[in-house]
């Protein structure tokens, strides 16, 4: 069972085989997606027709259109990025404030509040989406009926998408930042005060540097979650779909390898981001 106890040979072999099979299961879909991004055929299916970069770079309005010339696609990537940045900003900020509130202050109803903060995580994304949609419409209706205001951002569209994604990503940001903050040694703050630092200076010079790895990690996670979100977005999106919604629509219609190309592009981008993070992460994360 554990290395310090005798493990029969069959068990070792079985374990190794299982791990191999499991990794195969995990990576097979991704490998297949990547391979067919380079297949010189109009459909992402076997057999192999030879290598091409057309699905990335071709620009033939009558025939193949590579992802970088597919305006609709590029626009949706840009939309996803915009949404992601807003969600990230909001989630990290609110997560930080929540972490400070829950770790540093006592008040009535604290337990209730901290449990309520977990709730968005167990509400299916679709329901988060429709409830926010319904509520926003209700307010819009109210404002329209009583004040004859037409509030654009309460109608399906990107602002609502941002709010919908934020509604559960904020929970994750709160959890990770709070976990990091709870391990903070508060005598460091006492020490800073003792050495003459003001409260603001203590926050800036001691607490923020300590939290920085968690802040960066949370920001990245929030961005990725936002970029990948589908369920909540689907319910709130207007005429300006982010990438996941656009891809879903095209997959329904029967996909071309352009989608494989986008996928490869996304994998490469995530990998670069991950490497960048790992590179700078460990150096000062030992706090």
């Amino acid at each position, binding site marked *: 069972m554990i290395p310090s106890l005798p493990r029969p040979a069959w068990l070792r072999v079985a374990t190794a085989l299982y791990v191999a099979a499991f990794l195969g299961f995990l990576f097979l879909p991704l490998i297949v997606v990547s391979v067919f991004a380079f297949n010189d055929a109009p459909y992402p299916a076997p057999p192999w027709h030879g290598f091409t970069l057309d699905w990335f770079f071709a620009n033939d309005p009558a025939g193949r259109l590579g992802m970088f010339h597919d305006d609709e696609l590029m626009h949706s990537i840009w939309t996803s990025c915009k949404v992601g940045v807003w969600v990230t900003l909001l989630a990290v900020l609110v997560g930080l404030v929540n972490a400070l509130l829950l770790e540093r202050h006592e008040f009535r109803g604290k337990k209730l509040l901290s449990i309520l903060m977990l709730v968005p995580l167990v509400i299916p994304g679709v329901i988060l989406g429709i409830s926010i949609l319904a509520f926003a419409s209700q307010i819009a209706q109210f404002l329209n009926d009583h004040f004859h205001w037409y509030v654009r951002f309460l109608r399906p569209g990107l602002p609502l998408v941002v709010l919908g994604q934020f509604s559960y990503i904020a929970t994750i940001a709160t959890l990770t930042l709070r976990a990091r903050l709870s391990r903070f*040694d508060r*005598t*460091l703050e006492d*020490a800073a*005060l*003792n050495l*003459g*630092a003001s409260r603001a*200076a203590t926050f800036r010079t001691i607490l923020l540097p300590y939290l920085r790895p968690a802040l960066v990690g949370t920001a990245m996670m929030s961005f990725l979650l936002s970029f990948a979100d589908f369920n909540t977005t689907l319910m709130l999106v207007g005429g300006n779909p982010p990438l996941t919604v656009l891809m879903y629509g095209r997959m329904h219609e029967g996909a071309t390898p352009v989608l494989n190309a986008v996928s490869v592009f996304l994998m490469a981008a995530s990998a670069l981001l991950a490497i960048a993070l790992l590179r700078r992460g460990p150096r000062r994360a030992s*706090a």
Partner: protein
Amino acid sequence: MNQPDLTAQAVVKRFGDHVAVDSISFEVARGSFFSILGPSGCGKTTLLRMIAGFLEPDGGEIAIGGKSMRGVAPNRRPVNMVFQQLALFPMMSVGENVEFGLARRGVGRAERRKKAEAMLERVGLAGATAKRVDELSGGQRQRVAIARSLVLEPTLLLLDEPLGALDLKLREHMKIELKQLQADFGTTFVYITHDQSEALVLSDHVGVMNHGRFEQIGTPQDLYYRPLTPFVAGFVGDSNRLTGRASGVDGGLVRIDTGDGWVVEARREGDVANGDAVEVFVRPEAAMLSRARESSAASHEGVVESLLFDGAKSAVLLRERRSRREVRVALPQTGEFADLQTGEAVAFRFDPARAVCFRARRDGDA
């Protein structure tokens, strides 16, 4: 005594019903090394945190350098502190740690660096400026923590059991180093510890604290040789503690009957009347062993129960012949008793002037 750097007057701190610091008053002279010694839970940390400003006293007055500290925030007090776990900032280099306080005062970068480097050099850490805190050894970290505080030239340096986290060998070494540093800088040190040996070795004056009060304030020699309360006698240094009843009071000397057939004599401390329940403290090194029996009242007999060899601190556990009580007696360094055997009958005696007798505390807390 010149003008005191720290005065506390009737300082009180309560946590709910618990009185952590119970109307304490004391003074610490400029440039001296003052220790607050007491068991954990005696209120010493609370007292220190009030001096540092992390806690506000419920009553009384704390003055530092002659100025009242009431309502003064911790970051505005002329006091710096070496924390129990040192609280070095792990996200900064050694140099940045030492510069931290100067930067908060708005000292320019070049000046800051110069001062920090000079200070690190003084504590024997020249060239460690760029190192990370976790690259240092325990003793070096200790010195950084002290340098970080002293670079601000505080009126008072508070030390909260800073040696507690170190292993035994290093702790012995750092004791000496601390004392030299203090002598070197001339800063007033207030040191809290539960380790009586640290307090005795380091301090000019020691306050022994128990249940939120000072039992006795005095020089280490005072505490050791002339304890004023049973608590001090028991807490500072090793002692044999005997209980019994005073069966004769003759000026400064008391005759004590242990009630099980043993009679000893000891110096009286405080009021002791004939018939009082008393406690007697005899230090192991105050007793002398001999193999020859004497028939004087000061001579007692016992059987060797076990030998406790510990180099210079070797001792022998005896069982007193009549009362069957256990007595610890130091072995002389002459090697005279190197061949002592378990089960051997020996005689021992002690100078009554070096044993101390108190009227027993009523509440019986040991």
